[in-house]
């Protein structure tokens, strides 16, 4: 009991250390981009793609951070962007379905199943779910 408690706490701490190391740089970079006034440029660049999901162009940064790094990175990017609750839900759903691909795909591979097929399923599902939720927001 005490041993289990201690182990859980230690794991929690090591995850937190990892999380701080990811969140602080991502958060600061996005704030820097905002202060330099580059957010409009980046937003414009990704607007055509992100409008498929009803999201502002600059939220593409969160999608890229989440897909390649992890959800902590995605959240660190999202928070300074101050999206509406609706938009956060859409991008959270997309990221929930598909994230940390560089870490989770090798783990999937180690179990012996076809990890590339599952990788494709996750990305496609993520994009389709984003479009579907955007449609649902418009309808209801």
């Amino acid at each position, binding site marked *: 009991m005490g041993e*289990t*408690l201690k*182990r*859980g*706490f230690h*794991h*929690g*701490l090591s*995850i*937190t250390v990892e*999380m*701080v190391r990811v*969140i*602080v740089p991502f*958060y*600061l970079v996005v*704030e*820097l981009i905002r*202060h330099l006034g580059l957010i409009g440029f980046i937003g414009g660049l990704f607007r055509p793609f992100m409008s498929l999901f009803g999201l502002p162009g600059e939220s593409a940064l969160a999608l890229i951070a989440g897909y390649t790094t992890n*959800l*902590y990175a995605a*959240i*660190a990017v*999202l*928070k*300074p962007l101050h*999206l*509406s*609750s609706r938009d*956060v*839900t859409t991008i*959270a*759903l997309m*990221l*929930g*379905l598909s*994230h*940390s691909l560089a*870490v*989770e795909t090798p*783990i*999937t591979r*180690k*179990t*012996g*199943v*076809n*990890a590339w*097929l*599952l990788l494709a*399923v*996750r990305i496609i*599902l993520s994009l389709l*779910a984003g479009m579907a*939720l955007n449609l649902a927001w418009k309808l209801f």
Partner: protein
Amino acid sequence: MEALLTSLEGALLLCGQLFCIIVPLTVFYEFLKTRQASLAGRKRSLMGISGRGLVPLVTGVIIGLTYGAGVIIHSIRSTDLGKKEAFLILLYLSVCHAIIEDTLIFAVIGANALILLGVRFFLATLLTYLASLSGRDRP
């Protein structure tokens, strides 16, 4: 300089909020790991997944792929689950894992938790069920 400090404060505040979610969860996960063997007794299969398959499945759904990796890889490799069953388990997990943590950390920044939970469970169950109907063993 002041902007930098404000940003740093925002980043650390976010870390603090996530810390409050993560530590109770990892403690809970450790308790769960000590109890997982009791899952294997189930007889009926669900979406093509048997009782033995429930250990990696439930571990992944609750704890997640990264943190639960040890248990998941070990329990799939050490039991003689068929290739198809292993694929079904990983298909479910690919779509739906770390369900508590992923949902809570997005709820912190304003996402609707019910939508996130509902859609992931629904899609994972639907896809796994459909895949279990196909007779072909996947590589």
